[in-house]
Structure formats: C-alpha cells, structure tokens
C-alpha cells in the first residue's frame, strides 16, 4: 500500500532550485533512505511534505488524499510524524509540555497536566524510550532531547515517520539504538522516510535508497545492489576519495598548552572541568565527543572569548590573556568557529571585509587607525583565488555565498596568516563534499607546515580521518587520549558515552 506519493514536486528559493520535479513513493512498512549532500534539497523536500515549506508545483498525496501546500495540520491529521534536524523544542519547558504541544489533553477549560504526564509515561514505556516527564528540556543532554523529538513524532498513531538527519548529534551506540527503534516501527507497518548523508546508516537500515543531487533525483537503488563507494559516487556525481591522504606527523615543540582549565557555560554551570591538554607543532589533535560536553566552552575559553574560571592557556610558551580575543589572536592563534553565520562572518559585509575581519586594525590593512581599502581588496582578491571561493566578485556580500563558500572565506581568513596554533570547530559542518575535501586538505597542509591544530568535531569520521591524536571529551573532562592511527570507532563511542572500560 502506498502511504506517501510525491509527484513532480518543484520548489525554488531566490536563486536556487531546491527541488526539481521530484517523484518519490513510500510504502507501508518500508524504510526509504533519502540520501544526498548538504544542499541537495533533502530537507526542503520533506518539509514540503510536512507543510513547513510551500512548494511551487507538484502534488503530495498521503494515503491517497492530496495535501494542500503548507498545511502542517493536515499532514499531522493524516498520520505523518516528523523528527526535525534542528530540534523543535521549547528549551525552558518540561518534557511533558513539549510532547503535548499542539494537541493538549484538556479538562474543562484547562490543560490537564496530570493526564498529559501519564500519557508521556505510557508513550515512553510503549517504545522503550525512557524520559523524565518533568525534566526541563535545556537541562537534558542532546541525546535525550533527540528522544523527546522522536516521542513527539510517535505520540499520535502515525503511519509515516519522517526523520531529518536524526543521527547528527548521537554517539555510535545511540545511533544503533535509534536504528533498531526505526526497524521495529517499520516492522509494525509504519513507513519511514529517513534523511541522511551517512552512507553507513543507509547500508544498515534502508529497504530502498533515493539519491538527490543539486535538487534533482539522480537515482534509486537498494543496499543489496550497491556499496558505500557506489552510493558516494551517486551522491557526488564523481569518484570520491573517502580517506584523507596524509604523511606521518612530524611532531615538534608544544604550541598550545591548556592547564587545569575550568569554564562555565551561559547558564553558569561548569562546562569545562579541570581540563588539561597539549597540542604540538605538526600534529592535529582531534577532540571527539557528543556535542554539549563542553567543547564549545573549551574553544571559546582557549580563544579568549569566554571567562576562564581557573587554569591557564599558554600559546607558544607564553601566558595568553583572559577575555581578550584580540590579543590572543596577535599571539598567533587562528580560530575557525563552529557557527560561521553567527560568529565567523558578518553577512551584511562584503567578502573582502570579511577576509580582514580579524585583522582590520593591523598593517597593511590599517595605519594609525585609518583603514587601507586597496590593501584589503588586493588581499581579498588573492585569497578568493587561492581558496577557490566561488563568487563573481569579492565586493559581493557574504550573505550571497553558499554554505561551502562561506566556510571557505572563514578558512581562508584563518589559515592565511601562518598561525602556529589553529583551533577548528566543526570546520566542515553543513558544507558540500567538494568543500569538505578542500578544507580537510588545507588543515593537513597547515599541520605539515608546522602548525598545531586543535580540531573539534561532532563527526566521528572527521576526527578519525584527520587526527594524529584523539582526546575524548565527556562532561567537560578528557576521559582518554588515543593514538589516531588505528583508533577503534566502537571504543571511542563507548568513551564518548561516558562508559568505563
């Protein structure tokens, strides 16, 4: 029985065709994987199905009924549940309030919190997904927040479950658990549309794989008919090397020394706890860990952006100042921030302006407080060329660039100053495979030129393929330091989850 039938769906955003005449079917009890690079149009497609995006043309039928564009309520009424890539949770409310939102049980004129609470308990027992109904969402780790999202989707008796990149923030073990929950659901007759760009998961779970590239459907296959290399090729449209080529590390002196560092997060809780580590010239030290274990606070404190409660950070042997990102940079530290839109770029500035954002006041870009635009432009022009930023002109606004090209601007700016210490957080998040390859090679060549790289990433694959040494971070502490060569995925996964040997 066909649950979902998408026919010739087209959606354009200003300047981009996100979906071009895409047709997909999902049957009862079937797991369909929607595979594609970032920006291929996967999210847009499923958001159209769920009424969060209004398509330009095409039809969406659920259980035979045509669903009007942008009608989320109708999609829900037809038994569709969706787990969103970016959690759609109200951080300051309880688990129960989040789960019942939109269809609250009532007693008279009021919401009946008692029956709502019971409903959440029943739901969590039914699917074996344990949650505390009274916990405030923001106090929960991301893995549990994900679970709330899933429970929200499963609350109604759904026939079709859409999961938009649900594994991005989970440990390998949590991913396995999630995949088995999905399999059980499918076995009970629920149709599943599962979005991912991780080939391993597709091979493990999908009955059928639909591949999107640049907004077009480029092929349908099954895990039996192909392998990971084959899927990657369909996804990217050319042969891809999934491994980063790199020479053995030539480790030299310590360039970054973090000693007994403790840092608080925005809610004034200790996020980094007595953290010590050394990064040497000529190596990439990867920090593995589930997001939210203090990585962000660690990076901000190292870069002078967040108050260090205790401890010290030495750059090239010299004490670096607290809460002074300006002077920390001048000591020879570069920082590729995890959130380029928020921290890394001023999107209403030109590309050229963004290229000198961290050195606007240094010669030759400024002299005695007066800026020199011709030097800035010369420099920007060279970097745009060297780092292959795809743009008609460096005078264009940064907001006009695609995600991958924005990240290239940030990487170009940070890697072009021959810093001895490079801090890179999630350097390839949300960028296409071509840009990922490019950025990875740039990081490796910075290391080969004698820089020490502190790499923080939630993508375990990225950590594994780039790092010379791997530090596993859990609840603000280093729980283990391993050799990058031959590190075991499952072993690291257990450490990330805080499990002892």
């Amino acid at each position, binding site marked *: 029985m066909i649950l979902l039938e998408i026919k010739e769906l087209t959606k354009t955003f200003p300047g981009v065709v996100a979906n071009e005449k895409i047709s997909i079917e999902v049957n009862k009890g079937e797991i369909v994987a929607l595979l594609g690079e970032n920006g291929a149009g996967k999210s847009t497609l499923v958001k159209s199905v769920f009424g969060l995006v209004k398509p330009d043309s095409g039809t969406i039928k659920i259980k035979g009924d045509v669903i009007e564009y942008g009608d989320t309520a109708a999609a829900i009424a037809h038994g569709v549940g969706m787990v969103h890539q970016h959690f759609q949770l109200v951080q300051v409310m309880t688990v129960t309030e989040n789960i019942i939102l939109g269809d609250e049980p009532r007693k008279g004129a009021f919401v009946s919190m008692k029956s709502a609470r019971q409903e959440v308990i029943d739901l969590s027992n039914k699917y074996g997904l344990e949650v505390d109904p009274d916990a405030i969402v923001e106090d929960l780790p991301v893995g549990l927040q994900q679970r709330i999202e899933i429970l929200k989707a499963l609350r109604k008796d759904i026939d079709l479950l859409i999961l938009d990149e649900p594994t991005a923030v989970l440990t390998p073990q949590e991913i396995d658990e999630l995949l088995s929950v999905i399999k059980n659901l499918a076995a009970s007759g629920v149709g599943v549309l599962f979005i991912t760009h991780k080939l391993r998961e597709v091979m493990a779970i999908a009955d059928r794989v639909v591949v999107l590239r640049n907004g077009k459907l480029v092929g349908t296959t099954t895990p039996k008919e192909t392998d990971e290399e084959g899927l990657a090729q369909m996804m990217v449209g050319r042969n891809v090397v999934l491994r980063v080529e790199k020479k053995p590390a030539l480790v030299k002196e310590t360039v970054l020394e973090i000693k007994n560092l403790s840092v608080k997060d925005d809610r004034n809780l200790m996020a980094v706890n007595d953290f010590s580590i050394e990064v040497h010239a000529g190596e990439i030290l990867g920090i593995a860990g589930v997001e939210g274990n203090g990585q962000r606070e660690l990076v901000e404190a190292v*870069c002078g*952006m967040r108050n260090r409660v205790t401890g010290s950070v030495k750059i090239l042997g010299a004490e670096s100042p607290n809460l002074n*990102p300006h002077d*920390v940079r001048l000591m020879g530290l570069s*920082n590729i921030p995890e959130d380029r839109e928020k921290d*890394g*770029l001023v999107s209403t500035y030109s590309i050229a302006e963004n290229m000198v954002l961290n050195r*606007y006041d240094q010669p030759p870009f400024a002299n005695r407080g*007066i*800026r020199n635009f011709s030097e800035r432009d010369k420099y920007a022009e060279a970097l745009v060329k060297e780092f292959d930023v795809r743009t008609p002109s460096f005078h264009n606004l940064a907001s006009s660039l695609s995600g991958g090209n924005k990240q290239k601007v940030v990487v170009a700016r940070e890697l072009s100053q021959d810093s001895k210490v490079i801090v890179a957080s999630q350097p390839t998040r949300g960028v296409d495979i071509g840009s990922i390859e490019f950025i990875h090679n740039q990081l490796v060549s910075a290391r080969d030129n004698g820089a020490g790289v502190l790499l923080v990433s939630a993508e375990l694959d990225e950590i594994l393929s780039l790092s010379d040494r791997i530090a596993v971070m859990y609840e603000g502490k280093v729980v283990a330091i391993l050799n990058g060569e031959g590190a075991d995925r499952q072993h690291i996964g257990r450490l990330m989850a805080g499990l002892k040997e």
Partner: protein
Amino acid sequence: MKLRISKDALVPIGSVLVALGIGAVLIAAQGHSPLVAYKVLLIKGFSSVAGLQETLSKAGILIMSGLAITVGLRAGLFNIGAQGQVITGALAFTFIGYKVQGLPAPIHILVALIFAIIVSSLLGAFVGFLKASRGVHEVISTIMLNSIMAGIVDYLAQNQLKQPGQPNTRTPDILASARLPHLFGWPIGFAIAIALAFALSWVLKRTTTGFELETVGRNRAAAWYAGISVKKSIVLGMMLSAAIAGFTGGIYSSETTGYFVPAFYSGIGFDGITIALLGRANPIALIPGAIFIGGMRSAQSAIQFESGVAPDIINLLLALVLFFATAPFLAKLLKSNAKSVTTTSGWSS
C-alpha cells in the same frame, strides 16, 4: 550610481506625497483649506531669502540631531533620548555662554561647546554603561532620561541658573562672544552641520573605530570573535551619539535662541529620529530630508496665523511620512529595493 540614488529617492518622495494627501483630508475635515495651509508649509520656508536663511538654520540643527541618531543606529543602538541630551547640552552651553567672561569670541564658543559635549556624552556613557554591563535596553533608559533631564534642567533654569528678576523660567542672555555670527544673514550652523555629516561619514567608513562600531552594530557575536571589545563599542557609540546631540543643543543656543528656555528645544531630538530613519542611517543621505523638514519647521509659527490650521499638523505629517517611508508596502509598489533600517533585535544586551 546616479540611477540608484534617484530610485532610492522614490520611496521618501512617494511617502511625502501620500502623507500630504492624508493630511489634506484631515485639514479639510477641520474646515480649513489644505491648499492655503500647504502653501505656507511648503513654500514659505523656500520662497524668500529670509525664509531660506531660517530654513537652513533649522535644517542645520536637524541634520546634527539626525546624525546623533544615525551614529547610534550604525552601532546597533537606538538613541531615542537625543531630546534629553539636546537640552542638557543646550543648558551646559548657555551656562558657560553667560557665566564665563572675557574670552575672545571663537575661544568662548569653543569652550562652551566642549563643555556641552562633555556633559551630554557623560549622559551617553551612563546609558552605554547600563546597557553594556547591566543589560538595560537603551530605548527604555534613554526615554526615562529624557524625563529626568527635563526635570533637572527645568529645576536649574528656575533656580541656580535663572535670570534674576525674571518671572519666567529662563537663563540670562548668552554673551555676544559666545554667539555664532551669521555670514551676511546666512547661518554658519548649517555649514558646520554639513561638515559634520561628511566627517562622520568618513569616520564610520574609513577609520578602524568606525569599523568597530559598525561591526558591533551588525553582528555582536562576530565582532567579539574578531577581537572587538563589544562593551567598549557600545559605550563609545552611545557617547558619540549623545555628544552630537549635546553639540546640537549648543549650536542651537549659540546661533538661534541666545538664552535657555526648555520649550525652545522641544522636538529637535524626535525630529532627528525621523530624519535618521528617512535617511536610512546614512549621514549624507539624511541631508535632503532635514532641509525639507527644516523648511516646514521654520514655517510652523506662520501656519496658524495664515491658514488657521494648528501647527501640530507638522508632527502629524512627519509621522505619516515616517510610516510610509519605513513600512515596506510603498517600497514594493514603487519597486525600490531599499532595505529597511534595523536596530538591535530583542531585549538582550
């Protein structure tokens, strides 16, 4: 370049026309003739040499007050309290202007202006400090300071700084050495305002300090990441804005009023908001709007006498112009792609 400017001007011109249309209906509804009223309002300030001189004098003040708001907006600050800073600067200037004797003319003016700037920028620093370190939104604190400064200034002008023997609230006359001369009847203040506009435009564009203010205004997180002290920029931006407002009050006292009465200065700071938003927070682009409004303001005293319409019509017209110029539907209708101005979003500091 030329084409873009003329297209960008479509929206302000269109909104003036729509506002005049609505105003005409209201004037007619009150039983007066819109034509007579508009003739006074729009032509009087530009039709004679004397009228033009008064218009430019008013326009100079309004340009400066618009610049005060503009520099705040560029740094992501909405200085709705320019009014309080204008009267503070005006009283400070007047005080030095009548109290200090024996200084030669240019020095006396300079000293009085510097005092006005210091006092008003202290006010701005206070607001900036409240925002940067206590998270108090400048819109609320400056509105409150408007009332507070109005009270304090009124008290001073009624007591310590009062002209002895006068029944009214007013200070003694500013000495001739602190009065700005007119050049054959033409206001020097206007020239100062134009120079200030270009200077400010240059500072914002070409200096690192200007870049810091602008970056903090556009994206605070990125500014901090790039090594800019956000708190310092907030305090500085607020100080600069308040300093220009205080300077405005000083120039107005020196060139036009000659002594201090609180009511002389009413509306200057609020007109500055309208002018800055019409000029879309660009120091140069706000000049034409300021001249236009200056013309209307200089005709204000004549309108009741010559047409019977209440002078408050100008406030209404300006409010309508502001509404139509900032709301996007007119822009859509005229196919202009001018972006609307944003200040900061949200309450968080």
